[in-house]
C-alpha cells in the first residue's frame, strides 16, 4: 500500500566549486573560439534552425500584443471596430483580392517608388527578431546570402512622410537570415555628410541609443556651417575610395536624419541628430544590394 506522509529530506546537494569553475571555463573557451571564427558555421546552422521558430513566435507575440492592446482600451476597440467595418466593406468590394497579396503589392510598390527616386537596387524583407537585452541594437533580417545579402550592405526603411532612411548595416549574413547592426547602437560609426549650398560638411555619425534612439554627428571642424534642420546623409567614403572594409557597400547620399542641435566642444563641433526612421520600430526594411550613381 502506498501512502504519502511528511518527510524532510536532507538539504540541497553541497556546492561543487569544481563544476562551477568548469562551466565558466567552458563558456570562456567558447567565447574565445567564436571570436576567432571557429564556431561561425555552427552558429549559422543553429540560426538556420532557430530563425523559423523565432518568426512564428514573433508573429504570435504581435497577435497577443494586439489582443492586449484591444482589451485595455475601449477607444481602441471602437476604432478597431470602425476599421474592421471599413475593411469588411473593402474586402466585399475587392472580392477576389487576397489580403496577403495586397500587402505584398503595397510593399513592392513602395520599393519601386524608392528605386525610381534613388539609384539603388533593393531587396525587401521582414525584421523577425531583436536582441533580447537592452544592451545592444541588433535585429535579425529575413533574407540572407541566398538572396544576395552580404555583410556591409546598408539597410533602409521608411516611416510616415519621411524619406527612406538608413537604419543599419548588415553585420553578418547566413543563408536565409542576416543580422543588422542598427545605426543607434553605440558601436555603429558611419561616415556622413551635410550639404550646405556650395559646401559639404563631413563627419562621423555615431549611435546614441542611451538617449532614445538619437544619433551624434562628430569629428566635424569647428568652423563648419552646421545648423538645426540640416539633413544628414551618408558620405559613402569607403565605397567612393573602393576600400575593402566592412562598410564599403554603404552608398553615398542615403538619408539618415535631421540635425536638432549643434554644440561646440574644444576644437570640434558636434550635432545631435534625429533619425528619419526609428530603427527600433521597423518591421519591414530593404537592403541596398547595389547602387548605380549614373542613374541619377
Amino acid at each position, binding site marked *: *500500500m502506498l501512502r504519502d506522509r511528511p518527510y524532510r*529530506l536532507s538539504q540541497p546537494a553541497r556546492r561543487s566549486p569544481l563544476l562551477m569553475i568548469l*562551466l*565558466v571555463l567552458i563558456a570562456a573557451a567558447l567565447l574565445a573560439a*567564436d571570436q576567432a571564427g571557429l564556431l561561425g558555421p555552427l552558429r549559422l546552422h543553429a540560426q538556420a534552425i532557430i530563425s523559423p521558430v523565432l518568426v512564428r513566435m514573433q508573429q504570435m507575440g504581435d497577435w497577443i500584443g494586439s489582443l492586449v492592446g484591444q482589451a485595455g482600451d475601449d477607444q481602441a476597440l471602437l476604432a478597431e471596430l470602425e476599421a474592421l467595418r471599413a475593411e469588411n466593406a473593402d474586402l466585399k468590394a475587392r472580392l477576389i483580392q487576397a489580403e496577403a497579396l495586397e500587402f505584398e503589392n503595397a510593399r513592392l510598390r513602395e520599393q519601386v517608388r524608392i528605386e525610381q527616386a534613388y539609384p539603388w537596387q533593393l531587396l525587401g524583407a521582414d525584421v523577425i*527578431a531583436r536582441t533580447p537585452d537592452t544592451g545592444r541594437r541588433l535585429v535579425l533580417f529575413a533574407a540572407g546570402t541566398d538572396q544576395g545579402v552580404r555583410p556591409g550592405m546598408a539597410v533602409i526603411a521608411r516611416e510616415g512622410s519621411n524619406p527612406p532612411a538608413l537604419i543599419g548595416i548588415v553585420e553578418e549574413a547566413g543563408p536565409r537570415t542576416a543580422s543588422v547592426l542598427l545605426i543607434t547602437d553605440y558601436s555603429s560609426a558611419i561616415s556622413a555628410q551635410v550639404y550646405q549650398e556650395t559646401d559639404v560638411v563631413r563627419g562621423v555619425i555615431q549611435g546614441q541609443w542611451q538617449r532614445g534612439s538619437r544619433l551624434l554627428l562628430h569629428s566635424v571642424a569647428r568652423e563648419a556651417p552646421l545648423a538645426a534642420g540640416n539633413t544628414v546623409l551618408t558620405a559613402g567614403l569607403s565605397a567612393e575610395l573602393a576600400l575593402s572594409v566592412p562598410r564599403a557597400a554603404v552608398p553615398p547620399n542615403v538619408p539618415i536624419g535631421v540635425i536638432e542641435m549643434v554644440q561646440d566642444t574644444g576644437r570640434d563641433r558636434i550635432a545631435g541628430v534625429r533619425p528619419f526612421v526609428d530603427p527600433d520600430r521597423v518591421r519591414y526594411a530593404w537592403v541596398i544590394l547595389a547602387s548605380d550613381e549614373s542613374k541619377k
Partner: protein
Amino acid sequence: MGHSRQRRIEEIVVHEVALFAALLVVALVQTALLPRPFDVSLNLILLLAVCHGLIAGATSAARWAFYGGLALDLCAMTFIGTHALALLTGVIVSTVLVSRLSRENWLVPILGVAIGAFLYHAVYALLLTLLVAPVDFEGYALAALLPDALIALIPALPLYLVFRWNEDRVRRRVPVDVY
C-alpha cells in the same frame, strides 16, 4: 553493474539535453514573445536561474545559467559564451551570497535578483567593451542595467515563492510503502 552505470550516464545526458531544450524555449520566449514596455526587456533566464539557485543551490543554478546563456547567445546573434559568462557570474555570486540568509526571508529573491542583474550587466558590458566596442558605462547603467534590474524585481518574489512551494511539495511528500 556496468550496464546500470551506462544507463545512469544516459539518464544524465537526457536530463541535461532536456534542460537545455527547456531553457532554449524560454530564451525564444524572452527574445520574440515577451512584451517590451518602454523598450525594456525582462531577463527571464536570469530570473529563473537565480530563483532556482536560491532553492536548489549554486551548482544547479550554474548549469541553468550556462545552458540559458548559450540559448540566449544563439537567439541574440552574439558571440557564443557572452551571455553564458555574464549569467554564470551573476547567478553564482548572487546565489552564494544570498543563500546565507534564511529561505523564509522575503528579501532573499529581491536581493538575489538585484545582485544577479547588476553583475550580469556589469560583465556583459565589460565583454562588449573587450570584444565589440567601448561601452559608455554610465549611459549603459542608466539605459540598460537600472530598468532591466527594476523590471526583473517585480516577478522575483512570486516566482521564488512558486519555486519554494514546489521544492517543499517534492521534499515533504515522499511515497513510502506501508504494509
